[in-house]
Structures are given as C-alpha cells and as structure tokens.
C-alpha cells in the first residue's frame, strides 16, 4: 500500500519524465530486419549461461544508442521491451518454455528498432539444465558499510518467481535502545526445520529456530573468546559448530583494498541445542581456527586455521602491525564420532599457505566429493579482497583448482551448494567492486562450474540501483516456517538463555 503511494507521488512529480516511457511494448518479432555482426549490449550478462529449469524469468535491459524499441525472442517466447530496453517476461510462458527445454539450449535473439529500421544482433543461448535449483534463497541485505548499521534484515527469495519474504528485520525506525544487527543465518541440511541467526547489540543472542518455535540463547563464558560467530548445523544432530572470534577491522589509507577484517583470536565451539550447553572443539593460543563446516554425513568437521607467529594479539593494532597480510589460513578437517560426540585428530585438507595463499569458508558438496572454498592472497575475510576466488578440491584425489568460469576479477565468497549439488550460489562484488550481489553457477558432474548468472529480478535495474549488499546467500529446499512476528517477539521480548559450559 505504502509502496503504491510512493509510486503515485513519484509519478505525479515527474509526470513529464514518465510520459516518455509510456509507449507500449512490441508484442511480436519484427518481420523485416537487418542482421548485424555485433552482440547486443544486455544487462545482466545472461549470455550463454546454464540456468535451472525452475528459475524466475530472466529479465534483461538492452542498450543501443538511438534505438527506440526492443524485442527479445527467447525460443518461442517473445518479450517486448520499452524504450528503456527492459523486458518484463511473462512468467507463465517462461515456466512453460523452461519445462519444454530441459536439457536443451534456447536461442535468444535481440532486436532493436534503430532510426534506419529494425536490426537483429548476434544470438546467444540459454542452456536449461535438467536439475532444478532449491526453491528458496536466504540472504541478508545491508549497506556495504563497515561498523554501523541501522535498517537491515534477513530475507528469503522464492527463486521461481520474484517474491521476497522477510524472515526478520530490525528496526525500521531508529531506536537507540532497540538497535541491533542480525547476521550469520544458517540452516540444517538445506531445510528450514532447524535454523539460527545471531542478534548483536540490543536484545543480543543467538535465535535458535526449530520448526515453528524459537528461543534465544547466549554463549558466554570466561574461557570463550566471544559469542558464537560463524555457525554450521550438524546435518542430522541437534548440534551446531561455531567459531568464536575476537574480530576487528582496520581501514587502508593507500592500498588497493579498502579494509582488513582481522581476528585477534579465534577458536571452535560445539553447541548442543537440546542440552543448551557448549564446549570447545579446538582451543589453541598459536592458531586461529574459524569457519567450521560439517561434512554432509556429519562424520568430519572442516574449518580454516592460520598459524600465528606471535601469541594471541591483545589489540587490533598489534595484529595489524604484526603484518596483517602474513596471516595465511589453510583448511583442516577433524573426525567426529556422533555416538560419543568426540573429535579425533585434525588433518590438513588444503595447504594454501604453502603457495603463499589463504583460504576461507569451506563447504562440502552434498555428495561429499568436493570441497568448495574461497582462496585469496591473505587473511580470511575474503569478501573484501579483490583476489578472492572460488576454488574447489576434489576430495578423492586432492586436486584443487579455481572455478574459472564462475570467478571474476572482483571478490567472490560466502558460497552455498544446492541440495542436489548441481548449483552454487555465492556473493560477488563483480558488478561494481563494492555492492555484493548473488550469482548462481551450474556445477557439472565433472566438477566444473559454468559461467555464473546474476540472480534475476523483475526490474533489471534493481541490481544497479539497490544501495545494499546481499550477504551470505544460503539455499534451502523450503520456505522459512516461523513468522516474522514470532521472531520479533523472541528477539524483543525474551531473554537469552545462557548456555552452560562443559569443560
């Protein structure tokens, strides 16, 4: 309702401007045209990508100087575009088109009406995969600021259309006493039956959600560095592995990067949901352990670890002076016995530091064959590093290689597998090097990622106009069940239950 009021106000105010875009969309393919040897300038770049058969209509914006009308022919589907070049593909026809073309290529022809007549650009293809992507994608929307926050939230997008639901939003109107941040949403085994997210500052705690019920807990103990940070639900048990990090950030004054996020100290914790208890998994003074991730069968826990030359740095400045760019994280795994709930000896999985690199965010494919991670030049908060790329390790033979077709010159990180292992969704800053967006890439049976495509939006300009970043995209098979109102109640009106600490 409010949104429609906005449209009315805006439309009245810019009536003259609006008039210019009121021409109708062409409904049919031009009968007379000239073929040109150029490729159409389209945004997003959906040229020759592999797409899921259940993805939302992939609207584009075509640009061509002097052209007044555009037509996009996607297989048997004709999508007209107005003078601004934006398509608004009919969703029913789109669904039928994808259904009919599973496992096949669809040719896309773009036509532009120039002063001299219609032209047709070089065609491109959309390859429709056989395998669908999970139906829902959860993410956080927040400005790419560094320390402060005001309005932010966790949202869930239905990938087969453009519906976006609020999972939880903090204050829309500022209140100092209620101001809080939410982050690190995480789900158990691609299901929303069990999930969690953190609340920082006012009303702080970790919200644990089981089905339609939720409660708030606090992880706090003298022997624990800080609250639980990066989480990973055990795939079958009511257990969560957390890292606990003492984190700070410093801002470059003259450097290709803008910011460094550094851990002064970090350990790994195991939280038992049923007992509301927590204990250390790894606790060391000469290593920084972070980003835990369970194997799909729950038998191993993967994590990143960096050796520190000095003991735990007491201050951010100390850590910074002590060469922020010398912190190199490798990936380890540690066996876990679910029956006894005990861990074995760590095993080195990715020795990135040997080649002068650093890794973060290990994620194991659902079939247990691949370890997907981010590799950068140093450190662990790779989403702020230009060098960050997606890499994969074939666990069977220890081959590690970059996902070249999916990567870009900008940062890629915070990736998530689909439950069938054929899709990866990840955050990338490739559009503008600042605002992260969700990209999706097909991961084939040979372990290669295909060219990634930008999460489709009804208005293609949405991705360039939105002044917020998409954080931590997580795929799930179903929608979040608990209501926003209930989560509001849990966050605002309940006290966090303190988890007991087990030695």
């Amino acid at each position, binding site marked *: 309702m*409010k*949104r429609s*009021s*906005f*449209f*009315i*106000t*805006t439309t009245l*105010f*810019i009536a003259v*401007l609006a008039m210019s875009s009121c021409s109708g969309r062409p409904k049919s393919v031009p009968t007379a045209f000239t073929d040109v040897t150029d490729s159409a300038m389209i945004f997003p770049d959906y040229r020759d990508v592999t797409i899921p058969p259940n993805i939302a209509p992939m609207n584009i914006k075509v640009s061509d100087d002097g052209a007044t009308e555009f037509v996009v022919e996607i297989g048997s589907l004709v999508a007209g575009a107005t003078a601004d070049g934006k398509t608004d593909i009919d969703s029913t026809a789109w669904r039928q088109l994808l259904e009919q073309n599973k496992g096949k290529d669809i040719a896309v022809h773009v036509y532009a009406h120039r002063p001299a007549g219609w032209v047709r650009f070089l065609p491109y293809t959309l390859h429709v995969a056989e395998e669908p992507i999970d139906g829902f994608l959860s993410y956080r929307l*927040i*400005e*790419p*600021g*560094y*320390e*402060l*926050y*005001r*309005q932010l939230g966790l949202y869930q997008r239905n990938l087969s259309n453009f519906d976006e639901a609020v999972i939880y939003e903090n204050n*829309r*109107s*500022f*209140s*100092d*006493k209620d*101001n*809080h*941040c939410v*982050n690190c949403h995480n789900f158990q085994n691609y299901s929303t039956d069990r999930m969690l997210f953190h609340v*920082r*500052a006012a009303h*702080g705690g970790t919200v644990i959600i089981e089905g339609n019920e939720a409660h708030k807990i606090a992880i706090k103990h003298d022997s624990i560095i800080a609250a639980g940070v990066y989480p990973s639900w055990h795939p079958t048990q009511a257990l969560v592995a957390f890292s606990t990090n003492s*984190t*700070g*950030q*410093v*801002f*470059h*004054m*003259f*450097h290709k990067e*803008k910011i460094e*996020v550094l851990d002064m100290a970090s350990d790994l914790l195991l939280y038992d949901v049923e007992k509301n208890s927590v204990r250390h998994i790894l606790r060391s003074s000469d290593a920084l352990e972070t980003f835990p991730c369970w194997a799909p069968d729950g038998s191993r826990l993967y994590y990143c670890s960096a050796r520190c030359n000095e003991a735990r740095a007491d201050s951010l*400045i100390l850590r*910074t002076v002590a060469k922020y760019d010398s912190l190199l994280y490798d990936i380890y795994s540690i066996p876990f016995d679910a029956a006894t709930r005990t861990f074995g000896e760590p095993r080195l999985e990715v020795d990135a530091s040997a080649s002068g690199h650093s890794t973060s965010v290990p994620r194991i494919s659902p079939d247990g064959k691949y370890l997907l991670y981010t590799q950068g030049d140093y450190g662990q*908060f790779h989403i702020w590093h230009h060098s960050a790329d997606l890499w994969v390790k074939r666990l069977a033979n220890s081959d590690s290689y970059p996902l070249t077709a999916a990567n870009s010159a900008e940062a890629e990180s915070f990736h998530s597998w689909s439950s069938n292992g054929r899709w990866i969704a990840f955050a990338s800053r490739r*559009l*503008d*090097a*600042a*605002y992260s967006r969700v990209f999706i890439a097909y991961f084939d049976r040979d372990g290669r990622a295909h060219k990634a495509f930008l999460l489709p939006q009804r*208005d293609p*300009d*949405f991705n*360039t*106009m*939105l*002044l917020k970043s998409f954080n931590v995209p997580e795929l799930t098979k179903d929608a979040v069940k608990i209501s926003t109102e209930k989560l509001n109640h849990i966050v605002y009106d309940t006290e966090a239950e303190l988890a007991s600490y087990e030695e």
Partner: protein
Amino acid sequence: MKNKKQSITQKRPATKAEEPKNKVGRRLPWGIITGVAFFVLAWVWASWWMGDVLRIAYERSFFAADATLMYWLAQKSFGWLWIAGRALLTLYHWPVVGGLLVALLLTAGTWLTSYCLRLRGGWRCLSYLPAGAWLWWTAHVGLNLFYKSEPGRILAAPALYAAIAGVLALALKLSRKKANAQAATAWHWAAAELIIAVGCFALSAWHLQDRHPYLRPLTRMQVQLLHEDYAGMSATAHEHADICNRFVSGYYALALARTGQLADRLFDIRLEFDSIPTMGYDGKHNHCINYHVIDCDYHAGLYRASRHYAMEEMTLDGPSLYTLKYLTKIALIDGDWKLARKYFGVLKRVPFEGDFISRFEPMVGHAELVAADPEFSAVIAMAPERHSFEQFYLKPGFLGYYANLQTFKNKDALIWSTMACLYAKRMPDFLQRCGKFIDESLPRSIAEGLTIAAVKEPGILKAFPQLEMQMNAYELFVKEAMPYMQDREQGAEVLFEKYKGYYPYYYFFGNLHNTRKPGDDEQEHNRAGVN
C-alpha cells in the same frame, strides 16, 4: 457616462450584499496588499535568510525517481509524505526557486485558512498562526532540520497544510449555496495583519540567532564549499569570528589550506573545538561530532577516511546527495570506474543534478582527466603516499589527522602538520617539525609559536635568529595577558579584539571549550564489531 452611473448608484440605498462591494470600490485592497507583503516577506525569508540552511538540507536529503532507491523511505510510517517533502525540497537546488515555493505554500495556506474559517477584520490575524508556528519550528530545531532527522518533513508540513486547507476551501466553496461576498479589510486591521506577519518572521529570525547563532554561517560556508568559493568561506568565518565551533573551525581551516593561508591566518577567528548540541533520531542529545568529517577528510587528502564515513553515514541516515556525491568523487579518485558508474546511474535519477554529472561523468575510465581536475588534483596532492591505516591518524578530521604525520609528502603537508600541532597545542611535536624550517622564511603563526618555545629554550633563537624581532611583541603580550592567567575565560573576551590572529593569544586563551561531552561517541552506540 461613468459619472452618471455613479450618481445613479448613489441615489439608491445599497443592499447588504452590495455594501461591501461598494466599500471595496472606494478603498484600497488592503487584504491583497497584506497578502502580497506576506508573500514577499516569506520569499525573502525562505530564499535569503534561510536559503543556505535549506540548500544544505537539500544536499543532505535525497529524492530519486526510482522505486528501488526510495523503497527504504517508502516503507516507513508516513513514507509517502516524506518522499513528497523531499521532492519539493529538490527545488532548493536553487534557493530562490525553493524560497518561492515556500512563500507560495505559506501564503496560500494562510489565505485559505482565512477563507475556510471565514475570518474577518482583526480575526484574520489568526490565519498567520500556522505559518508562524512553522517558522518558529524551523528556527527552534536548527541543525536538526536535516541532521539526524527526516529532511522531507521540512516542506511536507507547509505543503500538507496548504493542501488540506485547499481541499477544505474547495469543499466549502462547492457546498455554500451563495457566494459570500468578502468584506473589505479595513486599513487598521490590515496594518495589524502586517505587524503580525512581520512579527512572525522577526521572531523566527531572532529565535534562530539566539538559539543557533552558528547555523547560518556554518551552512553559508558549506554552500560556498559546494561552489569551491574558498575565499568566500574564509570571509564568512571572519565575518562571524566570534561564533565558532569545531565545524566552523574545520571549514575555515579547509578554506585557508586551499588558498595557501593556513600558516598565516588560522588564528584570526575565535577557534573553538566545541561541539553543537543536537538531537539524534531517538530524541536523545548528541553532539554532532562528525558533521564535518567527510568534507574535511576529503579536502585534507584523506579521501579513504572520507569514504569510510560517507558510507557509514549512508548506512545510518540513508542515502543523501551529499554522501553520494562524495562516494562518486572518491570512486573516481580511486579509479573504481564500475562503482563510479553505479553512483552516476543513481544520481541520474535525481532531478537537477545534471551539472555534477556533466562535469564528472566524462572522467570515468580516464585517470588523466581525474588528475587534471583542479579539485581532484588538490586532494591527490595531499593524499598519503605510503601505506597506512586510518586508525593511526587522530580523530576527528582535518587538522587533527595531520598532527600525527611523521613524514611529509610535500611542503604543504609539512605546513598542515605543523599547524595541526599548533592548533592542538602540541608543542614538542611542533618543535620537532620546525627543524625543517631552518634557513627558510617562517610563516607568521609558526614564527609566533616558536617565540613561546624560545622563552624556555634560548637555543631556538640561535636556530631562528629572525625571531628576535618577535620576542618584544611576545613580552608585551605576556605582560598584558598575565592578569588573566587565572581567569582565562575573561582574558579570552578582553584580549580577543586586540590579539586575534596572534598565536600566543590562542595558546593561552583560545579553544577553552575543547569539550568531550556524554554522547560525543554517538556512533559508538551502534558498534558491535564487523558487519
């Protein structure tokens, strides 16, 4: 013929309905005259008296013809109203035009109020009360017109008032069976109306000057900065030399630095580092400590720090033209072409920002054009050239940052840093830098600073023999200042006119209100580590 008609009319007694009409015919249209006078007063008030304030309110606001960009505001309570208010505020791109709109809204609202309530004679004075209340409010809230508050409400209020009055008037007009002839306003009631109208503006002006004396000079300097009128900024600061806080200090220093006068004229005004009491979004007091940091950091060459604060401000307050323009310019300096393109795409949806776009957009992808731009080249000239972190610099911005520099990219950086030490009264650091001035002509303030140190360390006179001339003046100053050493507040008042501009005066009597009050850490409230 005309005389004949008049004589006929005079013979027949006027009906009640005709009587006022006849009176109008005989009298001056006082009602219209007072209306016009009010309109002119309102226009002058809104375009001249408050012109700079509302121009800066426009810069701190944001309105774009794009649903995605405005969604964050549209989803709030009364979001549509604030968006409409922001849309109207865009006319303050030209304060004369914005002022005209305000004058029209206030005049129309006043006239329609009178019409709806059928106010006659002296009662018409009541119709000025809503406009007067709005004028009082604008003066009362001062910087909070737009700082940590919704700028859309500034013009949404009079626009809504005029719109409601207009709708009511239309309804009344349609519902009244017979037009009720307007009684002519007697001259004495018109005079009373005029007095009320003038009183409203005068009271508002007085209240603003009494409660927020810094507001007009401060926003004047900000507007001058927008126009790169550094000499004008300096002149404004001198004109209001006794009204100073950390923001006026910062902008004044920035203007002097840009015109090469920093080392000669910094202490010409009553420099104070005091903060301004303002209200936060939650209605709590804060001290607005970072208001000028984005401007000052940028112009001091610390554009990365400026970017940091612009991004944080956008996070807290939503996008504004002010932050978006800085982020765009800094993206250009940094060579972040894709990011600059994004921001230009956003700014293209903002009405009336064509000048900014046409000046800067051609630089995308052309580092040589960025380097050749006078504004950018001045910023780049002062930018750090060695790797360092923002945390190693002192807060808050501008001069404070430079006090910690140990190596100097060029002579300007050395002077800025030396002046930062003088400003902060950090004499050991100042003396350390003075070594680089040996065998060079000493800028005025640096020479005066050395005289203070030379009293304790005579060796300084050997290194800087030219100071001999200054010592007599310093001794005279000390003699005159000595009685006030126990009461420096009084000394600051008594000695200001005679010694303003003289560094020893500043050293002993200047900047006595370097306060850090509860709430100064306004941003700390929201910090909880990494986002």
